[in-house]
């Protein structure tokens, strides 16, 4: 250690990364309040020379604009004293961020040398970190945060082995700070009603045996899905259609009805000759239908009434989840379609009509008759014991007045014991903590009430459990994640979280789900806090399929992929855009993120990957030859550098475009926000409209952008966003590579980062961003921490973020090292009263 410190003292910034190994790898664990934390790294006081050189750098490069007279952006640094950085930590964190991104001084102004940049940064950061170490502030996420939709769905999956359509049960969550797990402290009456209703539906579906009347569900196929060829996940020799997992509540007869897509003339679109389609249950065909056109003198109007009316089957199905699949049988002629260039979407009668019929929806109704109930995953998970099983085999002892009454009372005792064991287990996992007798009182009362109320006796036990489960699912202890402060701490005291709370933070962070048995068990035994145990758990959890949530939930939100679902480009300009392409975009980015997680690759590979994931559709879209079929596979990009990393992904390029054109502003803003971590402030109120100029000449995008930067109010922010976005103009509004813009003007893709660093095109942008990987990694760390904590990040968290990035740097910024560093950080492990 001492040797390392001296190296640090001598070498300054360049070795900070290495030196920070000196920070103890594991936080000290205290029982209650921790007055000092090593989270942000221990630093020695800077040499006196550091202050004066830094002060003169600030005076020379910053104060020329940020002085008492001009107060550029309302900021004056004239009278700041660098000897007491900690008194104005918020200000200096802002400065540090700008310096780190080399965004200040602005392009055109005199700039310090790289050494000077590093000196000043190093000085400020070590001062700020030192102050944070002395007075740690791990922040205070709200004590009560309700489960959002995703978490609720996953909690039900973990608790009851039941997949639910959560979108039907709960309203969408609002997002703030980029994520939908933050604005979750409110509870409106409508939402409470939805939770109550969800509790009833979920508990009924999980138990199954109490379902009396038929339930129904309609599975809609996206209307703009082209179904001319085989779709991924469906069998060879099939065409179009869809597959869904449906949970059947009991053994019984169910009706499955298929509807075909119709055009606005109410005809089944593309039905020009007979087509066969099949209905399969768990992969085995149960019914084969033929649909035959019925065109008549009505000349194509509403002539197909009833042609799909016979697409209905009644089938016996056992309880539990089953795969329901509907597909057409492919006709050989369909092969020609795959040869078309460019690809044509086929889903709209006017613009690009279907050539063959398509499936629009499947509805499943039932049970119409009940024949029993098979073991389902949910029932196996819930019924860990059987009621009254013990009494039957029990010999009756002599001396008891009535054999029957003894048997009954024994049965009831056995029932009660079994019920208690089931309910205790449900409550513990639902509440994500050990439960007490007091916790079980009410659910047991609900059990007993329903148990005695319900006839026949055969279902009474299960009806009782169902009612107890329903109550548990409506309980605030289930619906809310609760972080209780330990008693007796003064307000503002930082303290370490209990293992049980840490377990929930960990599992909701990595899985968007509650802790599993192993994690909860470790926490209950007080072992989770042990550094090695924690590290092993993080590794285990990242290797678990549930960690896909980091891609499908975290990365989706971070990279704005969620917006893809609602994005639909102008059909006239982009006739090839359909749901298939939208899905392919999404899948490509998801698979890159999943690969970085699964193979534990450096997170910078999200920007730099020289490979990507394509199916035939997406490969054609990108103009990459040799990829056939609908399944995705890893493809090495070779010299197709424009597609390296997410900046070349159709997903990102499309969600940052308007319906009919690209937007350098949106793309630039996206880079600033999600890669550089320096989002521009929101536009001011009363933005003046762009002056219409009747020059008679079509302006290129670059000229139009330049026009609007002429307005001084706009320029301050747009000069940060636009030059970055303009470098990505080689991609059109649906992410295709192009040589000219919408108006046919040749492209000029020279670009500039906020600090003025110039480059050419998207490859230049990528290299410029990768030149300082710590900027991107610290943005990602900030996003991970925001998502993991469920609160906005502010200047007080910056020392922790720097520590996270330094730790990850020691391991080439591998994904697991970044995640582990987040998990070990003070804001994640601690809380303030």
């Amino acid at each position, binding site marked *: 250690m001492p040797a390392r410190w001296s190296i640090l003292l001598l070498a300054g910034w360049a070795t900070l990364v290495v030196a920070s190994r000196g920070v103890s790898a594991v936080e000290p664990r205290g029982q209650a309040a921790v007055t000092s934390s090593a989270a942000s790294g221990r630093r020695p006081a800077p040499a006196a020379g550091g202050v004066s050189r830094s002060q003169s750098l600030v005076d020379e490069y910053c104060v020329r604009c940020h002085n008492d007279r001009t107060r550029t952006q309302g900021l004056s640094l004239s009278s700041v004293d660098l000897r007491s950085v900690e008194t104005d930590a918020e200000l200096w964190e802002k400065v540090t961020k700008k310096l780190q991104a080399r965004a200040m001084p602005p392009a055109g102004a005199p700039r310090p040398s790289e050494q000077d940049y590093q000196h000043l940064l190093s000085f400020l950061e070590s001062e700020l970190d030192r102050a944070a170490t002395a007075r740690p502030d791990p922040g205070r996420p*709200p*004590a*009560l945060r309700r489960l959002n939709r995703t978490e609720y769905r996953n909690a039900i999956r973990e608790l009851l082995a039941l997949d639910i359509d959560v979108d039907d049960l709960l309203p969408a969550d609002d997002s703030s700070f980029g994520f939908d797990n933050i604005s979750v402290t*409110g*509870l*409106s*009456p*409508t939402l*409470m*009603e*939805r939770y*109550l*209703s969800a*509790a*009833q*539906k979920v508990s009924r579906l999980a138990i199954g045996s109490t379902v*009396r*009347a*038929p339930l*129904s569900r*309609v599975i809609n196929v996206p*209307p*703009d899905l082209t179904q001319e060829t085989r779709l991924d996940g469906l069998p060879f020799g099939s065409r179009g259609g869809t597959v869904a997992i449906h949970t059947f509540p009991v053994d019984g007869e169910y009706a499955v009805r298929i*509807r075909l897509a*119709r*055009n*606005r*003339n*109410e005809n089944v679109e593309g039905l020009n000759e007979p087509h066969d389609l099949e209905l399969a249950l768990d992969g085995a065909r149960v019914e084969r239908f033929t649909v035959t056109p019925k065109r008549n003198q*009505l000349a194509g*109007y*509403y002539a197909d*009434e009833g042609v799909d*009316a016979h697409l209905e089957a009644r089938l016996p199905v056992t309880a539990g989840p089953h795969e329901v699949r509907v597909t057409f049988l492919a006709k050989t002629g369909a092969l020609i379609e795959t040869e078309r260039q460019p690809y044509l979407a086929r*889903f*709209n009668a*006017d*613009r690009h009509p279907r050539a063959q019929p398509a499936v629009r929806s499947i*509805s499943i*109704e039932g049970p*119409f008759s009940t024949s029993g109930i098979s073991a389902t995953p949910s029932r196996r998970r819930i019924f860990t014991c059987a009621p009254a099983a013990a009494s039957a085999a029990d010999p009756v002892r002599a001396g008891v007045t009535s054999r029957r009454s003894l048997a009954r009372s024994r049965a009831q005792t056995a029932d009660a014991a079994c019920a208690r064991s089931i309910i205790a287990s449900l409550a513990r996992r639902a509440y994500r903590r050990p439960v007490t007798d007091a916790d079980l009182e*009410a659910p047991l009362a609900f059990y007993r*009430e329903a148990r005695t109320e319900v006839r026949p006796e055969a279902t009474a036990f299960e009806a009782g459990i169902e009612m107890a489960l*329903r*109550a548990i699912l*409506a*309980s*605030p*202890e289930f619906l809310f994640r*609760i972080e*209780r*402060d330990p008693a007796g701490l003064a307000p503002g005291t930082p303290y370490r979280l209990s293992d049980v709370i840490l377990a929930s933070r960990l599992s909701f962070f990595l899985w968007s789900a509650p802790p599993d048995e192993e994690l909860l068990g470790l926490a209950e035994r007080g072992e989770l806090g042990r550094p090695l145990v924690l590290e092993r758990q993080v590794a285990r959890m990242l290797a678990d399929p549930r960690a896909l949530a980091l891609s499908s939930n975290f990365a989706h939100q971070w990279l704005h992929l969620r917006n893809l679902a*609602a994005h*639909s480009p*102008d*059909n*006239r300009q982009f006739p090839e855009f359909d749901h298939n392409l939208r899905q392919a975009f999404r899948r490509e980015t998801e698979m890159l993120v999943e690969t970085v997680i699964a193979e534990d690759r450096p997170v910078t590979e999200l920007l730099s990957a020289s490979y990507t994931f394509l199916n035939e559709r997406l490969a054609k879209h990108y103009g990459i030859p040799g990829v056939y079929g609908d399944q995705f596979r890893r493809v090495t990009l070779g010299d197709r550098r424009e597609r390296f990393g997410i900046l070349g992904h159709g997903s990102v390029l499309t969600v940052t475009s308007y*319906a*009919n054109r690209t937007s350098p502003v949106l793309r630039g803003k996206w880079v600033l926000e999600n890669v550089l971590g320096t989002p521009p402030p929101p536009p001011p109120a009363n933005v003046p409209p762009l002056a219409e100029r009747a020059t008679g000449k079509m302006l290129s995008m670059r000229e139009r952008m330049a026009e609007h930067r002429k307005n001084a109010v706009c320029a301050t922010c747009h000069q940060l966003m636009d030059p970055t976005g303009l470098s990505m103009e080689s991609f059109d509004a649906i992410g295709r590579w192009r040589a000219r813009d919408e108006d046919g003007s040749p492209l000029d893709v020279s670009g500039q980062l906020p600090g003025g660093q110039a480059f050419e095109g998207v490859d230049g942008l990528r290299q410029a961003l990768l030149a300082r990987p710590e900027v991107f990694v610290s943005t990602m760390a900030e996003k991970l921490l925001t998502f993991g904590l469920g609160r906005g990040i502010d200047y007080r968290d910056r020392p922790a973020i720097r520590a996270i990035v330094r730790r990850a740097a020691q391991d080439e910024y591998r994904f697991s090292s970044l995640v582990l560093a987040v998990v070990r950080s003070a804001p994640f492990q601690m809380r303030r*009263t």
Partner: protein
Amino acid sequence: MIITKLALPRRTFLRGLGATVALPLLDAMVPAMSALAATPARPSRRLGFVFVPMGSNPAPWTPKAVGPIAELSPSLEALKPYLEHLTIFTNLELKNANTTGNHASSNAGFLSCARAKRTESTDYENGTTVDQIVAKTLGSKTPIPSLELGTDLIAQVGNCDNGYNCAYQNNLSWSSPTTPLPTEADPRVVFERLFGDGGPPDARRAELRRNASILDWVVKDLASLQRTLGPGDRSKVDEYVDTVREVERRIQRAEQQTSASPLPTLERPASVPEAWEDHVKLMFDLQVLALQADLTRVITFQLARESSTRTYPQIGVPEPHHPISHHTNNPEKLAKLAKINAYHVSLFGYLLERLRATPDGDGTLLDHTAYLFGSGMGNPDLHDHQNLPIVLARGGAGGVKGGRHVKFAEMTPLANLHLTLLDHMGVRLDRFVDSTGRLDLSNGAVSL
């Protein structure tokens, strides 16, 4: 008023649905105690719209006399029993629907009076519709702010009319200029939204009690939770307690309602009735139930979407509506168009009959409801938007006199009528899009 006793084929309902399933969906199923029940003297106000596509054949549509009338025209004949509640308007215009995509813009403009932006993509733009302006004011008083219903099951995507996004024809209501509200045509979905699983009154009451006892416990649980929290978090829990109490109150009101004036056994419709007429009537039944239980006070209903190609063989029109509407003054086609008009009107008559047959406070539902029936197109052969066929059915409350045919000066904005309906619902605006004044509904005259 029992949904199962309506003139609906039994096959439209799930067989064997003994309906002992209780109500789960609280927000949807709690009929708040209606204003009427609280203060019987004041009728609650409700507003509905029924949209039909592609205008009319005006000759058999327009009543001969102007002012108070005793006779209706052939196309409107089915409304004769409700004449005292009717005002028929002639010469209203939807100016902003004059576009290059007239079907799209007349559907989009019918309630917004705005000009739909020409786009095939999701950057569509229309205007906030009159029903939604009302829903924003009255919506908080009922569990469901508004219902948007239709009979066309499949929403189209992309281009539906010469460069206009299908959203303009799929939907009638827009909650903002950029937010069309999806039209629901599946009676099962509507039913579940209104009544959850349904079932007989005693089962629904039992279900309410179960939820009430869970909530009772939740409040206690919150109280003990609160004791373990710091002062800052305690106030948050107070908010939750208030929320839960509010839900409890809603349940109490629902229990009172279920006991005092019980809705009948509610059987959930399984799927869409095969015959379109049965489908329409079922959708009307659901509207009446929703209004009766005071689940909502604002409803829009697209009887068929604009440029619909539905055929009506049941009334002797096997040809699709849209091509027939391009009648080129061919007498045979004009006659068939009039038949379709009269058929649609007769279905509206079914709704009025249901409303009048349903007791509501001191009168019937019809007394406390206004329903506008009409189209955003005038002469469909020309795709014009003048002389729209518009009928207003309105209860007697508020001193409205019906039984009138009001003939305006040509090209009087439809927005004037919408503005007046807003007044009537207690929403006072200075102007609605291109309105030029208000109408006096109390005597059927015009005050511009």
